[in-house]
């Protein structure tokens, strides 16, 4: 509860600070301090310290899993602020509003990680989505940004409509929005409504996490949005929606007596395939990362697919690993003058620190051992093997992981093995140190993932 209320308050504070504070540096500092505060408060709640005592009538439940996820999402956002805050303020004149919107999105993430009622799921998803439409179009002079925002809005509101219809049908069948009622046997005669409703909710959630075949909006939106916000969208937001999907599946689908696994397996395979294959053909690193985020979503879908302890640990690690690596790569990408692969040629000579850290992030995305990305993929694959069925999916996934090496390593090849003079914006030493710190975190967590996972149990 701490995080939900505080992030909303912080959002409002930042909105007003846009009126009263003129210095961009001050706004950045307020936002970063606010995010740190949010993280602290959430960690405090993990330790059993509640700032607010609100009776949620069981519409929200705060599990260890959800709170740990919040902590990870907030620390990722904090890192995102630390490395990219300057670029956020450079997007347009309304610097404070961008931060405010990000705080509102954090509020939405905190809601979906603890919802226990379909009403709260819907509200959480909308609180995440609506600010994102604005952030996507925040570069007002840029046509691509406007267009992306429009596409995102149309697709997003369409999928919201589908989700609402689904919830309506579930409500018709079960007389309640509470997740606990999902398995109640009242009105068994209306099971058809229930299943149709669940399917519609599932489809709309797949829309939001950009799983194939509902992924087509993703590359355009990620490409068009200002790069800083693409970074935020592709990592923290996507993971947030994933948590909602995992929780939804955990509580309502499993045990509802239907082979949902097969549907998820097919969606997973399609997502992996489309994401990886199309990423190969991209010429722009930004677009490649957009497709790679689809491919990574395919791996995260394993967490939905297998539903056991391994998958819960896996989705936590995946969120962390994927967010760390992608935020890092995007932070470097923003500094590049040229977003194509050729633009990275010879970066190892001009900016060795950026090149080295990017390499570590890319290795993590590809799932090479010694990085957290390996353990993320390991837990996902292990969870699928443990669930026993659909071994073909596991084999398909590793083939796709091997394909992903090809396009991730293209960036490494450009940076290290090709000659050229990669041009970057001026980079401060602090930025370099931050990136190095993130890379170190990727490696340390890649050797001792227990540092994070222990919080799931204690």
């Amino acid at each position, binding site marked *: 509860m701490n995080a939900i209320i505080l992030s909303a308050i912080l959002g409002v504070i930042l909105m007003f600070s846009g009126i009263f504070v003129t210095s961009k540096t001050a706004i950045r500092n307020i936002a970063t301090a606010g995010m740190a505060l949010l993280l602290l408060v959430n960690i405090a709640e993990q330790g059993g310290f509640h700032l607010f005592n609100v009776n949620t009538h069981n519409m929200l439940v705060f599990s260890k899993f959800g709170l740990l996820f919040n902590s990870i999402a907030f620390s990722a956002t904090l890192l995102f602020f630390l490395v990219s805050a300057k670029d956020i303020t450079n997007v347009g004149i309304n610097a404070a509003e961008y931060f405010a919107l990000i705080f509102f999105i954090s509020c939405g993430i905190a809601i979906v990680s603890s919802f226990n009622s379909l009403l709260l799921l819907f509200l959480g998803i909308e609180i995440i989505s609506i600010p994102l439409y604005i952030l996507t179009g925040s570069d007002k002079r840029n046509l691509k940004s*406007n267009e992306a925002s429009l596409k995102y809005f149309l697709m997003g509101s369409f999928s919201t409509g589908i989700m*609402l219809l689904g919830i309506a049908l579930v409500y018709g069948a079960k007389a309640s929005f509470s997740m606990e009622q999902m398995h109640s046997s009242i009105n068994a005669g209306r099971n058809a409504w229930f299943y149709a409703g669940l399917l519609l909710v599932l489809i709309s959630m797949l829309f939001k996490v950009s799983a194939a075949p509902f992924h087509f909006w993703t590359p355009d939106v990620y490409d068009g949005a200002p790069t800083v916000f693409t970074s935020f969208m592709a990592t923290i937001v996507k993971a947030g929606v994933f948590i909602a999907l995992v929780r939804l599946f955990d509580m309502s689908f499993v045990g509802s007596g239907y082979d949902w696994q097969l549907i998820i397996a097919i969606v997973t395979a399609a997502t992996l395939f489309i994401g990886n294959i199309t990423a190969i053909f991209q010429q722009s690193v930004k677009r490649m990362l957009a497709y790679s985020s689809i491919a990574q979503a395919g791996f995260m879908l394993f967490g939905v697919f297998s539903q056991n302890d391994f998958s819960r640990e896996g989705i936590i690690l995946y969120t962390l690993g994927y967010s760390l690596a992608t935020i890092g790569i995007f932070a470097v990408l923003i500094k590049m003058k040229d977003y194509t692969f050729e633009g990275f040629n010879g970066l190892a000579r001009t900016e060795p620190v950026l090149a080295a850290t990017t390499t570590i992030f890319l290795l993590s995305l590809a799932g090479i051992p010694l990085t957290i990305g390996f353990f993320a993929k390991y837990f996902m694959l292990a969870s699928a093997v443990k669930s026993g069925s659909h071994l073909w999916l596991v084999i398909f996934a590793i083939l796709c992981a091997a394909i992903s090496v090809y396009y991730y390593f293209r960036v490494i090849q450009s940076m290290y093995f090709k000659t050229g003079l990669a041009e970057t914006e001026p980079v401060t030493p602090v930025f370099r140190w931050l990136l190095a710190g993130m890379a170190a975190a990727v490696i340390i967590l890649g050797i001792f993932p227990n540092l994070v996972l222990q919080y799931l149990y204690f």
Partner: protein
Amino acid sequence: MSSIPLTHILFVSTALFFIGMYGLFTRRNMITMLMSVELILNSVNINFVAFNKYLYPDKLDGIFFSLFIITIAAAEAAVAIAIIINLYRSHHSIDVEDATEMKY
């Protein structure tokens, strides 16, 4: 009072939903598309209210949900119109066919 059966009302809401969907996919005018989205959301509202009234009249869950939907729809419309105005300023058109900066 309940002379109109539930199925009739569900027919209306389903029809509205698919009209909205049809509009979203075929219209090229951004304002019309926005209206189609609103149509979809409102058809769901009808669903909720009808379910509540006919099936579970002793509680008000469904009606409250529709209140939330109305609020969210208003917020969405506000954002959408802002986006459309912004596009209109640069394109001088509200036809989505003109918004084709990005191709695969």
